């Protein structure tokens, strides 16, 4: 075998050795395609989009004027747009908070208690909704939350209609029914993004060795203290990772606000209408920059809070 095909083998050998001795080159060869994708298609298109935000739309001709200007950005900060930004960020924050609160116990149970079949079943339960169409689920929720829907029916069976009515009369979150209120929108957002919060928290908790929890108790900490001083800080990077998903997904979404909400605009809808209906691509691009800036600020704050120290 060793001498049967010396030329072919030695060529293969030489090639292997050539790359083995040049790890940098090997890395470059392996990463070339993905980097090209990431650099050109991904970041490149984003850059092209942002470039658009420094152009402006000529109001008379309806043409994009390809000259550098901050005019579009100055137009961004109208009262209506600021309203949209605050509404969207507030919703994203509320959704993220609720997702974290709901996801943590689920993730904790999955990571630290469930075993075997129960764990597999939980995984399935978390992931299954992601396999069905997002649009279908949102429309299903529209029916569930409708005035004649199952939620209203259930609440009236409990003779709690008055409570629901009272809540729906509240200024910002209320509306004629759950299906056209901020409250309903918030519920649906929490539902659709929950898996994106559960999975990173679960992964982070799974990496906390039992011996650390034992050690904390051994050193005199009650379970609640162990949770605050050891488990939570170590799971925090997972919470931050999850919140990056829920926060940015909420910032950019236009289907749920369009389906469940009342008529008040969200960022995603504004981008859609500027870009599609009005043909104002520079304005749409400038609006896209907003969630990017919000996320950057969010991450800087998270870093300041020490979210990544346990990584």
């Amino acid at each position, binding site marked *: 075998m060793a001498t049967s095909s010396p030329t072919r083998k030695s060529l293969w050998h030489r090639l292997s050795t050539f790359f083995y001795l040049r790890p940098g080159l090997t890395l470059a060869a392996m990463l070339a395609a993905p980097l090209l994708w990431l650099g050109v298609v991904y970041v490149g298109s984003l850059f092209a989009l942002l470039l658009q935000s420094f152009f402006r739309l000529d109001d008379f001709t309806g043409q994009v004027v390809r000259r550098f200007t901050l005019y579009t950005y100055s137009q961004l900060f109208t009262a209506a747009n600021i309203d949209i930004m605050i509404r969207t960020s507030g919703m994203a924050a509320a959704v993220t908070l609720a997702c974290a609160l709901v996801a943590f116990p689920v993730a904790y149970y999955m990571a630290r208690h469930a075993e075997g079949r129960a764990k597999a079943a939980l995984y399935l339960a978390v992931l299954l909704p992601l396999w069905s169409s997002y649009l279908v689920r949102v429309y299903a929720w529209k029916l569930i939350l409708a005035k004649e829907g199952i939620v209203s029916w259930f609440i009236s069976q409990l003779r709690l209609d008055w409570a629901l009515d009272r809540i729906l009369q509240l200024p910002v979150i209320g509306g004629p029914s759950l299906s056209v209120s901020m409250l309903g929108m918030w519920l649906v957002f929490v539902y659709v993004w929950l898996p994106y919060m559960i999975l990173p928290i679960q992964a982070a908790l799974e990496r906390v*060795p039992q*011996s650390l929890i*034992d*050690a904390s108790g*051994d*050193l*005199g*900490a009650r379970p609640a*203290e162990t949770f605050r*001083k050891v488990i939570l800080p170590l799971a925090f990077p997972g919470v931050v990772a999850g919140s990056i998903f829920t926060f940015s997904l909420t910032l950019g979404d236009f289907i749920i606000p369009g389906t469940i909400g009342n008529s008040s605009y969200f960022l995603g809808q504004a981008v859609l209408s500027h870009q599609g209906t009005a043909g104002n691509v520079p304005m749409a691009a400038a609006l896209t920059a907003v969630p990017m800036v919000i996320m950057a600020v969010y991450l800087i704050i998270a870093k300041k809070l020490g979210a990544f120290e346990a990584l």
Partner: protein
Amino acid sequence: MAGGGSFAPPALCRKPREAAISHSPSAIVTHSSSSPAPAVSFVNVSRHFGEVKAVDGVSLDINDGEFFSLLGPSGSGKTTCLRLVAGFEQPTAGSIQLHGEEVANLPPYERDVNTVFQDYALFPHMTVGENVAYGLMIKKVPKPERDKRLGEMLELVRLPGLAGRRPSQLSGGQRQRVALARALINHPRVLLLDEPLGALDLKLRQQMQIELKAIQRQVRITFVFVTHDQEEALTMSDRLAVFNLGKIEQIGSPAEVYEHPATAFVAGFVGVSNLIRGEIAQAITGSAQTFSIRPEKIQLRDLGQPVSGDEYSVEGRIRDVIYLGMHTRYLVELSGGSDLTVVEQNLRTTSMDVLAARGRAVRLVWQKAHVRPVGN
């Protein structure tokens, strides 16, 4: 300085104690007498995991201030015993007392016991200083006092100046010291150590053995030390318990356990022993009772040489020679087909000499006094 790893049991051992296996629970419950209650007391303790009897009817007393080792092969229940003392596990049956107080329903955070974990279990998100002072922080000890004790403790384990580092920035030996300091800073009445030196290389391990022993003498805390390394157990302990399959085979001082192994298992596990049973035993001693003889107690003689009245002897052929520098190990095949291990120091012999002995017929001789009858 580097004597920590020497093979012989330490010459310095405490005055003989009665074997501490207590067969009657009443012996422990009465602590009104003058002698203080043992630091740790197990009475018929069992911990079963389904079919697995991790700890099975264990009774032992560990005295206050003692360096006590739990020695046994992997899976023999040592860690489970330690976790029972710490409170991470609850016994399936039996009673556990710390200083005379029943602790069956006491959670770990209410026991005056601290643990050095096998994997050290340092908190990765805290600095060395925060790790070590964790117990004091939980007890709400004021910051100045905390810092003072932290400084003393880092001094004790010889890690001054590392308080600001992260555990990930430490070497294995340094992590081990941090884990020790984190447990000791609370002044527990009992310190539990689960194979704390297992992850260290030989040299560092021997150095840490000496240091651990010195620290124990200094702080006068009861140490319960788990190890599967018999040499470590013999050199460090005041007394040790040999575990097998969840049960205790023998409790005693290192010298007792080494010189008088109570069972065949102990004879085989603690040091190297030749076990001779059945017909061969009959031929040598005149009785079929199984006995053990340590390899270093056997002399190799030429066939013709005389044997005195207080010696046993048997003939064999050297099947293999393993030259180990300081000494040589011979595998001698007896006529019955079984092998005996003999260890001789290379006092005058060279490697050439000993290797030439392979295949030679020899007479093995040992003092009758060195024979230990063992149960099965």
